[in-house]
């Protein structure tokens, strides 16, 4: 404990807008671990099928989409079976939607902690985005099973999948940082999340392929980072001939700006969290 006892903490009103104190998060990594662990423990306590919910939800959505958009409306699916086509997008999407909802609600949900204990507040939205990864992995295994059922081989490009998972995580965190901080002050934000998520889903290539979006709208369309994430996912899984790297890069740039701004915004809002929450 000797190294700790020599530490000196200086407490004063923060002057700079850009003190992010990211090493503080590293210092509190065990708390981050315990918060994620708590979230996982609690989510499926007193449920009958427990972790089965992680599979049930995307599967049911996939079945509905396949019936309505695949069979009835006959939306093109880039030559894939529609079920696989939809499920491969629902994977990152469901992860993103869950992570976003949890991180937006995180600070307000742990108001008791925020007003009584010190820790880097950034840990809360981060924990909110991390705890969805377990569900993601479980539903991913189902995808692998479904692909072998349809006789689709995993492409070598799937080695890049972790990259796109991080991409999805960063997208959720970027938006989560902005909205969770706003939610502390304006609870309206919490109410708009369900609408936001729903609208956002249709603005992403989940039930339809990117290829049906007219070329002249592509740029604006790919300002939605989830377009890049989902395109990346499908490319990584199925190794499509011509991945749309332009779309992915635009999305990545948007996320980098969102997350940078989100960090600064969150850090500056968090000063009053304890007084306002």
């Amino acid at each position: 404990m000797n190294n700790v006892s020599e530490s000196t903490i200086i407490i004063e009103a923060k002057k700079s807008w850009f003190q992010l104190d990211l090493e503080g998060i590293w210092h509190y990594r065990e708390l981050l671990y315990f918060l994620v662990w708590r979230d996982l423990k609690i989510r499926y306590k007193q449920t009958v099928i427990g972790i089965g919910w992680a599979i049930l939800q995307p599967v049911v959505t996939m079945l509905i989409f396949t019936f309505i958009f695949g069979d009835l409306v006959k939306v093109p699916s880039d030559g894939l079976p529609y079920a696989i086509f939809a499920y491969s997008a629902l994977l990152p999407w469901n992860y993103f939607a869950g992570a976003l909802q949890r991180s937006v609600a995180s600070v307000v949900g742990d108001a008791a902690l925020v007003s009584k204990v010190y820790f880097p507040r950034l840990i809360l939205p981060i924990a909110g985005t991390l705890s969805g990864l377990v569900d993601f992995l479980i539903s991913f295994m189902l995808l692998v099973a479904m692909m072998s059922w349809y006789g689709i081989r995993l492409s070598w490009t799937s080695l890049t999948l972790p990259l796109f998972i991080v991409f999805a995580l960063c997208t959720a965190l970027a938006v989560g940082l902005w909205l969770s901080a706003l939610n502390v002050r304006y609870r309206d934000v919490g109410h708009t999340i369900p609408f936001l998520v729903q609208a956002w889903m249709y603005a992403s290539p989940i039930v339809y392929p990117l290829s049906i979006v007219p070329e002249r709208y592509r740029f604006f369309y790919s300002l939605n980072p989830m377009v890049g994430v989902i395109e990346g996912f499908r490319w990584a899984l199925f190794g499509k001939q011509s991945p749309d790297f332009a779309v992915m890069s635009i999305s990545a740039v948007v996320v980098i700006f969102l997350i940078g701004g989100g960090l600064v915004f969150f850090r500056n809002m968090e000063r009053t969290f304890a007084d306002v929450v």
Partner: protein
Amino acid sequence: MSNLAIKVENLSKFYKIGTRQNRHDMLRDQLVHTIKAIFLRNGKGKQAINVDSGAVDSFRPSQTDYIWALKDISFEVKPGEIIGFVGRNGAGKSTLLKILSRITEPTDGKAKVYGRIGSLLEVGTGFHPELTGRENIYLNGAILGMRKAEIDRRFDEIVDFADIEKFIDTPVKRYSSGMYVRIAFAVAAHLESEILIVDEVLAVGDAAFQRRCLGKMNAVANEGKTILFVSHNIDAIQRLTQRSLWLERGRIMRDGVTAEIVQEYLKYVLPTSSGVWDRENTSRQSSALTRDVEFIRLGFENRDGGRFVTGSDLPLSITIRSKISLDRVRFGLTILRVDGIPVGSSFVPARSRIEANDTVVFQLRLEDLRLAPGRFYLNIAIEGAQCGSDYARFDMLTEVLPFEILPCLAAEKVPVWQSSWGSICFNQCTAERIG
């Protein structure tokens, strides 16, 4: 390396009044205000805005909308010192501890903390009812800033202190409230930090556990830890600390030896009164009670105002006015010690009919008062009933008529009453030699 544990320089914090009520303020309103403010600022000077636009005024509150919860607080703490903080509600004690715990930021000024700091502003922060005792120990420990290895090492000690071994794998939602508090305090008590900040956490649990907590605090203190301690329990402050800071309206009134500070503080909070409470001279806050029957005047009916001797009677005259007619009234009387701990109560029926718009005077007499020497005050309520119905409460006065019990020099066998002997001086006790 400094030979200080904490150095606080000109620490200040202000709050916007009304933040609490407006905390759910609408995003829409804020947007409208912001846009207006930007728009108006472009057109005119800053000063003109305040004069011209009411909307902008409310967006940019004037000086009076702020309150300094702390103003220019400076003090130093040496390693191993135990400091008590006294002061009334809203004096800034909790705000100060929150700033030192880094929960909220100061508006101005600076504090330096040398060493690892652990704060205990609440027992059981972050406990989750669905998790087991074991799981909550780890979660709560991590929240308080303990490392996992540290919790592993002290786990048995914690369980032992909480006396909860049998239920360690039961969800805490099935715990009794006593068990819950015990386990929560046990985690906190095993924090390994050099500086410990404690706020009112001893006000929980049953008496036996409270004693144990105080004992643990003493032990922690003897280990050479620096402790900052806030409590309304003056007794605990006196027992634990040698030095105290007295805060009043966000400023330090006094800083010094606990025994002296506490004496002065109590004198300040409860000045010797004339022994009379008068409605005319008191601004009363609104309350949920109807006050269809209300107190007009209360007064001690003895020669010496608010001074009595152990064993004497306490005569109290009460004037009430009633807007309604009642078949009977009664008074509820509670005697409290200076630190707010109730000593005892009495319900005194006055079987007398009261007509509407009557003003009535009653004389109450508490006979053979066995209170020990010290300072006390009263809470008093008036309740009335129609024939056949239950009593309803109409008016209540809290913390009124401070009075002092003086030692009865002639009859007592003990010269100076000590606070550790309690607040009641029994005298109906005899000792006869039987063998």
